[in-house]
């Protein structure tokens, strides 16, 4: 004799709605996890490049719902203002860069004699009294010495251009962030879907 031991009576549309909710939750969870992973990986890369923990901690992450799904972003708060414009340090270290004076001829690189300012900051010639220095220039290079001690060691070395190579490459990290993102969401989603079904059964 047949024995019926269980049954489910359910409106399928409500199940599908539960599925959509579960999918959104799964996408939120997986994307948030990827953001955290990417943020920490970039922070480690910054440290490994010798750029210091302060810049590393300027890397932030966030995720949010969008009209069509979920979005995760990793962004930098390492914005610095300079007379030449506003720059993001994390972006700067990812490219080869050429630095030159924005309004004139020379960059002034301080030597130890120039000393340090507030909180250990490097000083610039502008931090000294006007006409304090005397310039000695030969071609593309030169030095600044105190006008009242013209034979002393230079306080600043003058150069027209400084070129720096790329120090940070985040391409590999960025590539890994998208790997298997869809399948991971589906896997997480399926586990949630199964739970939904079992809950219905228990009810």
């Amino acid at each position, binding site marked *: 004799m047949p024995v019926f031991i269980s049954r489910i009576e359910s409106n399928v549309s409500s199940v599908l709605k539960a599925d959509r909710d579960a999918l959104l939750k799964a996408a939120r969870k997986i994307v948030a996890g990827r953001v955290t992973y990417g943020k920490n990986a970039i922070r480690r890369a910054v440290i490994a490049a010798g750029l210091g923990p302060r810049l590393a901690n300027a890397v932030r992450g966030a995720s949010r719902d969008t009209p069509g799904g*979920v*979005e*995760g972003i990793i962004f930098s708060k390492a914005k610095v203002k300079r007379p030449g*414009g506003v720059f993001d340090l994390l972006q700067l270290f990812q490219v080869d860069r050429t630095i030159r004076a924005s309004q004139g001829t020379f960059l002034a690189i301080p030597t130890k004699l120039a000393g340090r300012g507030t909180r250990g900051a490097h000083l610039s010639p502008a931090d000294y009294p006007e006409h304090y220095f*005397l310039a000695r220039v030969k071609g593309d290079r030169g030095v600044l010495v105190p006008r009242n001690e013209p034979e002393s060691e230079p306080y600043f070395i003058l150069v027209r251009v400084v070129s720096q190579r790329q120090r940070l490459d985040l391409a590999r990290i960025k590539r890994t962030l998208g790997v298997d993102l869809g399948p991971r969401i589906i896997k997480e989603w399926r586990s949630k879907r*199964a739970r939904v079904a079992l809950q219905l059964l228990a009810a």
Partner: protein
Amino acid sequence: MRNQPEPADLVADSTVLILLDGAEEEPKEEDNTGVLVHRMKVGLEGYVAGTDPASRLNDLLTAAREAALSDRRVSGLTYGHLREEFKFPFFDGLALGPLADFDPFREYGSSHGGYFLQEFWLQYATQPTNATVLVRVEDVET
């Protein structure tokens, strides 16, 4: 020919412009949060569209089957118990048919008291989106 700079000019020159070689674009503010480093976008429309009611009912059946098989009360239930408990009429004739991927002769008996799970039936009620899933176990000798 450039004039030899005077010291006063050099003071003014000590500001810095940074030129980005190879940079594709200027830094962009991302909703006042900072400069965007990386963005991941996941669109869910395609996933939802891939969930059709029939396949979802398949999932429900699978879940019901697994739940039934894990329910050790099976061995103690009788026809009368079930009828009283579920207030459910047993009318085999209304069952519309098994799902395509179900193997009615698969054996589950070894750890469940010697039962074969013989058939699963999907019965549509008044609308296609309302479904009743019946799990039928036939008591057989093993």
